[in-house]
């Protein structure tokens, strides 16, 4: 297995607060990896550092060996990293199809016009929104907006897909559908790094996990083994009183 993404020494401070401290991990080609940790542990900051929303103070982020740390987000997006957002972000007053085309039109091999329309329909069908291209994004339900966001990210034909709590807020049926969808992407060979709180989903989807607490990586490895580590359990549940 080769590492697609290698993060090392990644640090980000906000004033006196160190949100991410010397974080290091790697994501292998073709795997689905979980990024876990309690609230405020630095997961989303890490995602933002990888996708270019934030510039790291120190450290490197290597995609296929090239250091992309500190590059501007549009360059990183064109370079092969697509993302979804913790709070779903679709463009309300554009049609569903146009939202997907926004992912196709500015990537490294851009599509525009008829070919973009055709590809957008394919992507919509793939996330379960086939035939809905004409409605406004604002008219979609919450879970369908999440699907749309995923279609837009896939439109970039990314080397690496970052999912920031993509499964959060779904009901039981929607959750099963969502997990199936991510699994089908993984089966097609998309490499995924996902921040997630839904443990059942992590067990079903992620072969490996990284766990963060208070800005630092405290465990990494096979999902089942990581979940059993005392440091991880105490991070989530607190230490036993002596």
């Amino acid at each position, binding site marked *: 297995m080769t590492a697609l993404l290698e993060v090392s020494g990644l640090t980000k401070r906000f004033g006196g607060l160190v949100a991410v401290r010397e974080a290091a991990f790697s994501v292998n080609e073709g795997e689905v990896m979980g990024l876990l940790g309690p609230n405020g542990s630095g997961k989303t900051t890490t995602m933002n550092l990888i*996708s*270019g*929303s934030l510039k790291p103070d120190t450290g490197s982020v290597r995609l296929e060996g090239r250091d992309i740390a500190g590059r*501007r*987000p*549009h360059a990183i*997006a*064109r370079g092969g990293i*697509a*993302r979804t*957002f913790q709070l779903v*972000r*679709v*463009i*309300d*007053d*554009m049609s569903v199809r*146009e939202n997907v*085309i*926004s*992912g196709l*039109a*500015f*990537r*490294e091999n*851009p599509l*525009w016009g008829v070919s973009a329309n055709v590809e957008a329909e394919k992507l919509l069908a793939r996330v379960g929104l086939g035939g809905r291209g004409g409605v406004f994004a604002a008219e979609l339900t919450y879970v369908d907006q999440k699907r749309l966001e995923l279609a*837009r990210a896939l*439109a*970039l034909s990314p080397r690496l897909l970052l999912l920031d709590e993509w499964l959060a807020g779904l009901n039981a049926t929607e959750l099963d559908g969502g997990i199936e969808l991510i699994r089908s992407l993984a089966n097609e060979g998309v490499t995924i790094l996902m921040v997630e709180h839904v443990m059942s989903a992590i067990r079903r989807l992620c072969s490996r996990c990284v766990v963060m607490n208070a800005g630092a990586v405290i465990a990494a490895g096979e999902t089942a083994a990581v979940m059993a580590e005392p440091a991880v359990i105490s991070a989530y549940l607190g230490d036993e009183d002596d």
Partner: protein
Amino acid sequence: MTDRPVIAIGLGALVFAALAFVPYMVDGYGMSLAIAIANYTILATAWALFSGPTRYISLATVAFFGVGAYTVAVLGEVLPWPVVMLVAAINGCLLALLVGLSTLRLAGIYFVIFTFGLTELIRQVVTWYEVKVTSTVGRYVFLDIDQQAIYWQLLGVAALLFLSGYLIGRSRLGFALRVIGGDEMVARHVGIDTTRAKLLLFVLSALFMTLTGAIMAPRWTYIDPAIAFNPQVSFQTVIMALLGGVQRLWGPLLGVIPLTLLFDWLNAHFPNHYLLILGIVFMLIVYLLPQGVAGALARLRGLRSRKERASAAMKEARQ
């Protein structure tokens, strides 16, 4: 309105060709109204070209307009007219690049205030220069360019503006601007170089404003910084564009025509209360027609088609 570029461009060309005959059909007053409408059509449409999709409200319109006018005042009698226009265009673009690079990282109200302050700054700098260096406050523009020539030049620039606007609206650049207006964070993460896209459109929009100021300068014969950089021009441009609607290329036109006529009438009958009434008109527009006339028309049409769909569905259900 139509999806066939050849037809849309052909129709537009026909309309502009017909408008070229206006000077043969109206008297002097009609001519001055036609010039005023053409002037504000360019300013409001150029303003909407950038501010419509991005939703950045710029109050710098008159900064570019004034730079165009001043270029003519300084060079009009020294250089041939086409060269003067070229210099004005270059000045406008350079200023827009400077303004764009320093302001387009700002958003919302900060951008509005900065563009307004910048216009005032330019006016003060020009005044200072004229007083200290050239020892005059005003300049005379004696050029042998009559009303008709001014109108035709404005018409030509307007045609060019509508053609550019139409082509940009269909291009990836126009789409990028809409994505930026929708959610700038999303725009960056789908690979749009947002700074570059905004800067490009801002400069293009400023270019048309500058050319308009240059063309209009000979009408005044006398200009000083207070006339050339009158902030009222920026405000009126915004009001007209918002009344018409900025989501469509032809939207601002629907605001320019009625408001130019209204302002002209107000100026003639209530010269002392003009600004007060202008303010009230502005508030009424923002409250009553937030999407502009064009937006209201589209909503009406949408309402009707939804009703039709609903009644069709009812019929189907009954069968």
